[in-house]
């Protein structure tokens, strides 16, 4: 049920390579006494080298759980990875031991979180936190690590890093802390950066700065990125490929242009229409109803309840991602209905 490599024509190189990250049928559950919540229900996703995959979805769609499952950061119990594989640089991360996994997290595969205030230790100088990984994973001496730390801070746009290296997090603004967190992630020269809503807690002018920084760093270092956001516009500006998640599943995957110009899933269509933008006229087209509870198992399409194209089949036929056009896959049983109605 995996989607075949999702490449655009301009990368003949990548088209032949195996993807850098290959998530296959990942299932993550949260168990409590009263219910089992399936937060990721068989998620498959591929990230080519050097590219950005945007994951868009509303709260509870499972996008953050996906990132945390890839890195195996979810506490178990209550979380349990109940199935699937996560291939990264030739290894299935789900089979690694604790030490090996820590090594991967500290070097090749890094993650940054939404709230920079809570991702740093408040009672430890920022500089030391940035260089901890260099000392632990790369065995750099204190002095060498500091030199590299200063370089990193310079790279992420912190002015006069020398005088700020020993500051504590409370002394920095949210935007600066997010830069520090990015510097920390870049310390190991990762091949993949998972960025979970990296600009959601920031003001729009600071978001603009952080996005410019991420795009710039990515182009300079050729790392790949998974950028999770609820904001379609952020995804549009930064991603090569977009995955749309809903109720713990990937509903649609496509090259960014195709997704915005010719969406093949009714949920994507609804999401695009709900977002106000310059051309929006009087009313927004909202999606009726609410996302389903993840503790109830649905046989058919999880979006069927809210879908204006749905028919009986949608409620009782299991849906899987199917490739429709080159690199464009949709989990909709009847994507042709969109075209007919959308005209």
């Amino acid at each position, binding site marked *: 049920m995996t989607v075949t490599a999702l490449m655009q024509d301009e990368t003949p190189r990548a088209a032949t390579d195996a993807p850098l990250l290959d998530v296959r049928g990942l299932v993550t559950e949260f168990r409590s006494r009263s219910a089992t919540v399936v937060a990721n229900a068989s998620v498959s996703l591929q990230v080519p080298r050097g590219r950005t995959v945007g994951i868009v979805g509303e709260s509870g769609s499972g996008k953050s759980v996906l990132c945390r499952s890839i890195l195996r950061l979810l506490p178990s119990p209550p979380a349990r990875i109940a199935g699937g594989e996560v291939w990264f640089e030739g290894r299935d991360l789900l089979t690694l031991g604790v030490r090996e996994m820590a090594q991967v997290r500290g070097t090749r595969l890094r993650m940054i979180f939404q709230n920079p205030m809570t991702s740093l230790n408040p009672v430890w100088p920022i500089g030391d936190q940035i260089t901890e990984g260099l000392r632990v994973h790369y065995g750099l001496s204190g002095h060498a690590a500091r030199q590299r730390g200063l370089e990193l801070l310079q790279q992420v746009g912190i002015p006069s890093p020398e005088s700020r290296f020993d500051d504590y997090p409370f002394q920095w603004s949210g935007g600066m802390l997010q830069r520090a967190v990015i510097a920390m992630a870049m310390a190991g020269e990762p091949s993949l950066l998972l960025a979970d809503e990296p600009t959601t807690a920031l003001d729009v002018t600071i978001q603009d*700065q952080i996005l410019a920084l991420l795009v710039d760093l990515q182009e300079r270092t050729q790392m790949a990125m998974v950028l999770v956001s609820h904001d*379609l*516009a952020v995804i549009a500006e930064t991603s090569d490929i977009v995955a749309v998640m809903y109720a713990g599943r990937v509903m649609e995957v496509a090259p960014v242009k195709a997704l915005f110009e010719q969406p093949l899933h009714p949920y994507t269509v609804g999401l695009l229409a709900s977002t106000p*933008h310059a051309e929006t006229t009087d009313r927004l087209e909202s999606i009726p109803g609410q996302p389903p509870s993840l503790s109830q198992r649905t046989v058919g399409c999880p979006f069927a309840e809210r879908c204006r194209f749905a028919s009986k089949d949608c409620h009782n036929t299991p849906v899987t991602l199917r490739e429709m056009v080159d690199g464009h896959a949709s989990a909709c049983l009847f994507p042709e209905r969109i075209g007919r109605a959308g005209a």
Partner: protein
Amino acid sequence: MTVQPSPAVDEAPDTQPAKALLEVDDLVVSFPKSRNLLDLIRRRPPLRVRAVNSVSFTIQEHETLGLVGESGSGKTTLGRTLLRLYDPDSGKIRFAGQELRDLGRGELKALRRQMQIVFQDPYSSLNPRFTVAETIAEVLRVHDVCPREEVQARVGELLGLVGLTAEIGARQPGTLSGGQRQRVGLARALALKPTFLVLDEPVAALDVSIQAQVLNLLKDLRDELGLTMLFVAHELSVVRHMSDRVAVMYLGQIVEIGTTTEIFERPSHPYTQGLLKAIPRMVPERRRREAVLKGEVPSPLAIPSGCPFHPRCPRAEEICTSAEPRPIAVSGTQVSRCHFAEPKPLKPRTS
């Protein structure tokens, strides 16, 4: 930190016959910064953070004024001060011709029936122990606006008004979704049939598909009930969608105000221009640009001299560091607080 009282050109001369429902003139609101032990020993006078700094504007009847700005710009403080949830240091707030400052407790309570607020966070603005019906009924009871035997019916009516079923009334907020809670907050605000509503980031905590539902509901209610609104938000696209006119705040001041079209299509102030360029666009093309505005918003404890925006302004010159710009009328309806703002000639009409 002295404030030059601004001449009242913040508001354009009335071109419409519409009546002003709310008039704000030279409003200043500040909060004391808490002092630490050292400050007390040294007997330093308490510093005051100026959250709203000499703000003037009016809202016409049935109009929606959008208020945008980044965190710390003072937009929430301004919204709350209008309802006298905070007391201003100086300045005037006139609502339907009445000066809010002069009102006693009882009069204020009566006036608050006409002006209500919906808060951003639907999770913390509802009492978790109350059922939805109790939350709404409390307002009706406190203001004594409806006979006891009619309360239940009125609650059902209000829930229907905001698109909720009467069955929701028996539930507690904990069992509701964010969108439903925000609708409850709205029903509570509408319970007293207000004429003026302050909406403080009403959709910031909601997902886009739910946000669209709530925005549509707000538009419908506004038209149906003839509401006048102050719509406070940081998300510019939402403000554009909802507002007739827009005011842009930066460090406690309204740096620009104008019709929605003027602000979004012909912004005059460099901050407005930068803010608009910084919004990501729904266009699937990889961004190639540098960040538009460099630096960060300075602390409100240390507001820069002259024009508060000058350290980040791409157009700043000598004068901007020393002289505070006065509001300049760019058009009949657009006012910009920039030294370089120029009245724009109307486009020559081409036939």
